[in-house]
Structure formats: structure tokens, C-alpha cells
């Protein structure tokens, strides 16, 4: 209203709403954002380089640390890339369990997103409700592999462990619980007048522009592009299941929210089908004791909760470490849309948008 000059504000790296150590330098005109710079790298640990100095089996454990709220999908992407490089056939049971794990992971990751996103916009109860359900997923993971955050839950060629007895029943029970809880979240948010005012028309990005910016995952689908790697280039056991790919229309924060809420339901649908059709059989394919992929390169992408998580791995066929290891992290690529989305909105919308893009700084910086 009454402003005379631009104000430069440092949001982060220590700020409650930047989801980690992200630093956003905002240039403000009053409360309106004219421009913003994103400064990343505060959590850079050199994971890609680190992976080039570990042998193939050890790398699974490092991938856990990238998107640390979605470790299972990170594992999956890596092991499938190496399997592609080595042309290993993975047994059906292992593929089914992998699918269950990665969908559970999607639910956990979306719970975290929903909680923090709602919290950023001020609805703090949703945060605790979502974390309550995320806790159940973590319990399931703990029962499966003993860890609650960094699972190290997959192996090249299969899985380290079969599911514990009765675990499938618990997963099904969890799906029933979540089924009743998702409407609870929606009741608090979807029809809430304030929530809609805060998210509708905020950070609108059209489908073409979203593709041009290299966005992926729910951020892309919110703009109406029905791109889902699970559907388009099925991996694990996704080809065997029926599920819909929710897309938005307006490409604003509200549509991205709706897309993710629908993904909760689709994930439950996939998990139920996988549990029902879980085949018997071995959980490890035929892989040599010492893994040494033949010389060559492979790129393989999966649909992580945040978007297209791709691994590009080059093997020289001699050493027992990758020659080159490169990750295409969805958070990093989606984050570069932030300045485009923010421009012209208010400071309050910045936190809504950061939440809407759903970044994990561990993955952005690697």
C-alpha cells in the first residue's frame, strides 16, 4: 500500500517453512514478490561422487539419504537401474513387494507433504493428523526391515527379506484406516473457504510451460499433463495393476493439492491389488555374489512421490564401482520452477508454493 522501496528478505536457510536448509532471497515491493533467487547447496554431501567410490551393493544404502522421507523409492530406482544394466530378471514376488513398499512410501511421503503444506498455510491440526497416519506406515516399514527412515530395503536382483508373517494383513488394515482418514483431511481443507482462497490461482503454470521447465510428478499432473511413469513406462509390477492418474486443470496450488490427495486413494488401490495378487516364489533373482555389471550405461526413471527420479549409471565393466553416477532428482528440477511461480504473489504465497512443490532439500542438494 504505502511503500517506497524494494525490500530484500532472506528466507532461510534457517526458516520454519523452507523445509530444510533452502535459502530463498526475495525481493519485495511491499508484500509483493518481484523476484527471487534460490540458493541451494547447504545440504550438499557429494552423494553422486560418493557413490562412485562404493561398490554396487553399498550404494543402496547411500541412496536412502537423498530423499530421506522417501527412501524406498530411492532404493527402487537405483536397484532397477543396475538390474537394467545387468539384464537381471527379478522374480514376480519381489516385484510385487517392491511395488507395495514404494506405494506405502508414497503414502508416507504425501502424508509428510500434506502435513507441512497445511502447516505452512496455518492449519496445524492437519499436520498432526497426517503424521499420525505416517507413523503407521513407518511402523509397517519397521516391521518389514527394522528401520523407520532409511530402510536400505532393496537389493540388486530382489529383496533382502521376505515379508514377515501377517504383514500383508496389517498392510490391508492400514489401507482401511487410511481410507477413513483421507476424508478427514479433505473435510478440514478441500472445502475450507480459507484454504481455497489461499491456494486457488496461486502459482498457476500451464501444461506446456510445465513440460518446458522439466517439471514432473504431481506438480506436472496438476497442470493437466497426464504423465506418470508408472503408467507410461511401467516398472516393478505396475503393469499388472489398475489405477488412475489424477490430473488437475488449472495448474494452481489447489489443483496440485487435489492431485496428491487423489494419489492417496490410488496408492491404496494399488496396494490392495498387490496384496491380493501377491505371488509365491523366491524374492531374489539370479545375481552373482560379486556384482560387476558389464561395461555400458543405463538411464532408468521411476515415479517417486515427488516426480521423475532417474538414475544414470555408467559402468566400465572392470572395477566394482560405477564409473559415473548421476541422479535426476525430482525436487531439484521442480524447484527451478519456483521463481517463475512466485513472481507477483505475496510473501504468504511463497510458503504455500514451496509446500506445493514438495521439495526435500536432501534430494535437491544431494
Amino acid at each position, binding site marked *: *500500500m504505502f511503500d517506497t522501496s524494494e*525490500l530484500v*528478505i532472506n528466507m532461510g536457510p534457517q*526458516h*520454519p*517453512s523452507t523445509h530444510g536448509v533452502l535459502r530463498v532471497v526475495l525481493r519485495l515491493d511491499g*508484500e509483493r514478490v518481484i523476484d527471487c533467487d534460490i540458493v541451494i547447496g547447504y545440504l550438499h554431501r557429494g552423494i553422486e561422487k560418493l557413490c562412485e567410490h562404493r561398490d554396487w551393493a553399498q550404494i543402496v544404502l547411500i541412496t536412502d539419504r537423498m530423499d530421506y522421507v522417501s527412501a524406498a523409492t530411492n532404493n527402487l530406482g537405483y536397484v532397477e537401474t543396475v538390474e537394467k544394466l545387468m539384464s537381471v530378471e527379478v522374480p514376480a514376488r519381489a516385484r510385487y513387494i517392491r511395488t507395495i513398499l514404494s506405494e506405502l512410501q508414497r503414502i508416507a511421503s504425501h502424508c509428510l507433504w500434506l502435513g507441512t503444506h*497445511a*502447516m*505452512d*498455510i*496455518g*492449519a*496445524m*491440526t492437519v499436520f*498432526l*493428523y497426517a503424521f*499420525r497416519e505416517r507413523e503407521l506406515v513407518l511402523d509397517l516399514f519397521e516391521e518389514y526391515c527394522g528401520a523407520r527412515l532409511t530402510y536400505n530395503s532393496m537389493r540388486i536382483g530382489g529383496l533382502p527379506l521376505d515379508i514377515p508373517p501377517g504383514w500383508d494383513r496389517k498392510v490391508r488394515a492400514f489401507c482401511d484406516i487410511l481410507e477413513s482418514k483421507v476424508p478427514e483431511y479433505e473435510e*478440514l*481443507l478441500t472445502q*475450507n473457504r*480459507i*484454504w481455497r*482462497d*489461499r491456494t486457488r490461482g496461486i502459482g498457476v503454470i500451464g501444461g506446456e510451460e510445465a513440460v518446458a521447465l522439466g517439471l514432473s510428478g504431481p506438480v506436472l499432473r496438476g497442470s493437466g499433463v497426464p504423465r506418470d511413469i508408472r503408467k507410461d513406462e511401467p516398472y516393478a509390477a505396475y503393469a499388472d495393476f489398475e489405477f488412475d492418474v489424477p490430473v488437475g486443470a488449472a495448474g494452481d496450488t489447489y489443483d496440485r493439492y487435489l492431485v496428491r490427495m487423489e494419489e492417496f486413494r490410488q496408492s491404496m488401490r494399488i496396494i490392495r491389488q498387490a496384496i491380493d495378487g501377491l505371488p509365491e516364489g523366491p524374492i531374489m533373482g539370479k545375481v552373482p555374489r560379486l556384482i560387476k555389471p558389464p561395461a555400458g550405461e543405463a538411464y532408468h526413471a521411476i515415479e517417486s512421490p515427488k516426480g521423475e527420479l532417474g538414475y544414470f549409471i555408467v559402468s566400465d565393466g572392470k572395477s566394482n564401482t560405477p564409473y559415473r553416477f548421476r541422479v535426476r532428482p525430482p525436487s531439484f528440477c521442480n524447484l527451478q520452477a519456483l521463481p517463475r511461480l512466485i513472481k507477483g504473489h*505475496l*510473501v*504468504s*504465497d*511463497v*510458503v504455500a508454493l514451496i509446500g506445493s512443490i514438495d521439495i526435500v532439500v536432501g534430494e535437491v542438494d544431494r
Partner: protein
Amino acid sequence: MIETFVVPILKILVLLNAVLVSVTFMTLLERKIIAWVQVRLGPMRVGPHGVLQPIADAVKLLLKEDITPSRADKWVFTLAPIVSMVPALIAFAVIPFDREASFFGYRIPLYIADINVGLLYIVSITSIGIYGIILAGYASNSKFPLLAGLRASAQLVSYEIAVTMMLVSLVVNAGTLSMVGIVEAQLQQGVWYAFLQPVAFVVLFIGGLAETNRAPFDLPEAEQELTGGFHTEYSGMRFALFFLAEYANMIVVSAVATTLFLGGWLRPFPGVEALWLLDYVPGWLWFFLKTFAFIYIFMWIRATLPRYRYDQLMRLGWKVLIPLGIVNLVITATLKVLL
């Protein structure tokens, strides 16, 4: 001598202590209520069910180092929490808790003063409280508090207009500005003004949320956006003062709303003779029950609703509430003249 000096001073002391203690325990109440909404337990460690938590908090805040940023405007920095606390406390002077009560044979009115501009007094005193926030924002010499201070001043000034507008139409009904007089008028007309002036009641409630910086209008202290808003740079007891002021303001707003719209110390349906049984409940208990209900709703809303954005807040204030206030005033006045 006793009548003119001792009794008022005693009343002031008792009231001040009561307010400060209840404010302290309201922090616990809020944490508990929000915890229950969020299927948590809330504080449980200090004392049974955490009842001593406020005392532990107070001790902690008192013992903490009181930091003044080196580039801050020191005097104003110290002044700001005081300025926000004092108006919240002196506003209680005109709130009537009950007509009178007897202590040791004395019949003592349960209010400190009944001045004939009581309502205006409260409105003007609360408008002074704005300074605390603006000054804190300015004196911290930091950008987030500054933004919060600017937000706060615009927000409070504009919501004050809507609230005052509604109070005017209430006064048209009551025919007096004295707080006691307004309650008596409700007794005479046999109806709580919440039923006579529902629009004013709702707007006063919304405006009260905005003026006490409560969710969903807590923009000046929006933690997720402004990292704590105007009290970002405050620590220790000075921070606690801001906190207490917010809660004290909450009590003031609830008590004022109770007095004006829910008949103060009157029982429900004061005009219905058939409910004479309710007369056995003392008036001050009715008053506290109603005030508590208000405070509970304040906390409940905080647990449920997301936060408004700055421009939406201003739009709501200027384009909805203020026109509503004018229309309500015109209708009330017209009816008053015609009937």
C-alpha cells in the same frame, strides 16, 4: 475512606492478580485444548496432567537471558512489550463481572468503575495496544518484524473500524455507553443482544479474532511466514509479556463480547419467568461461563482453520465487514426510529 480508597484498591489488586494468573493458565488451557483436538495429550510432565506447566514456563522465561539486538532501538525495544501489556490490563477496569456481591456484610459492586463512556473507553484503550506491535516491529531493526509491524498496524486499524461500527448499532439499541447500563438494558428488554443484533455479534467476534491476532488472522506473528513476526527478536521475559498480552486481550475481547451480547451476568433468557430456577446460579458464574465459552471457541478456531493472506484479510475487512457495519447501523437506526 474505606469506601473510596481501600475497597477500589483491593478490587484492583484482586483483579490484576486474577487476570495475570488466569492468563498464565490460559496458555496451558490452549495447549491442552489444541492437543485434544489433535489427538495428543499436551503437556503432561510438570505436575499431574501438566497443571504446573505454566509455572515452569514462567520460571524458564524469567531465567533466560534477555537479549537486546545490538542494532535495535533499545528504549523502544524495551517499551514495546510494556505498551502492549498495559492496555490489555487496564481495559478490565470497566468490565462488570456482576451487579454486586456481599463480603462480610459489605455490598460491593463487582466492577472497578462504571463510567458513562465505558464502551468507548474499551475501544480507545484497545486501540493503544497496537503500538506495542508496531514498535516491536520497528525497534527490532530486523526485516521480518518490520513486515509484521506494518501488517499489524494496517490490520488492527481497519478491523477496529468494523468493530466500532457494530458497537454503535448496539449502542443504538441499548441507549447507553456504560457497560453496566448495557447489561441492565438487556435485562429490561428481556433479550440478549446476540439475538437482537446477530450480525453485529458475528462481526464483533471476527473483529475480535483479528484484533487479538488470533488464528485465522494471526498474520503479524505468522510463524511459517515471518518466523514469529513482531516478536522474532524478543526473548525471555519481554517475549513472555507479548504472549501474556495476547492472552489478556483475548480475555478482554471475550469479556466485552459477553457483556455486550450475551447479557453479562444475566442468566440465559432473562425475560422468561419460567426459568426462575436458573436465578440461583450466581451472576458472576454465568459471566465466567460465557467468557470461557468464548475463549474456548477462540482456541478451537486456532486448531481448525488455516491462515488468511494479508490482502484477503484486508479485503474481508474493508469490503465485507465495514459495509456490513454501515448497513447494520442504518437498519438498526431506522427500526429504532420507526418502532
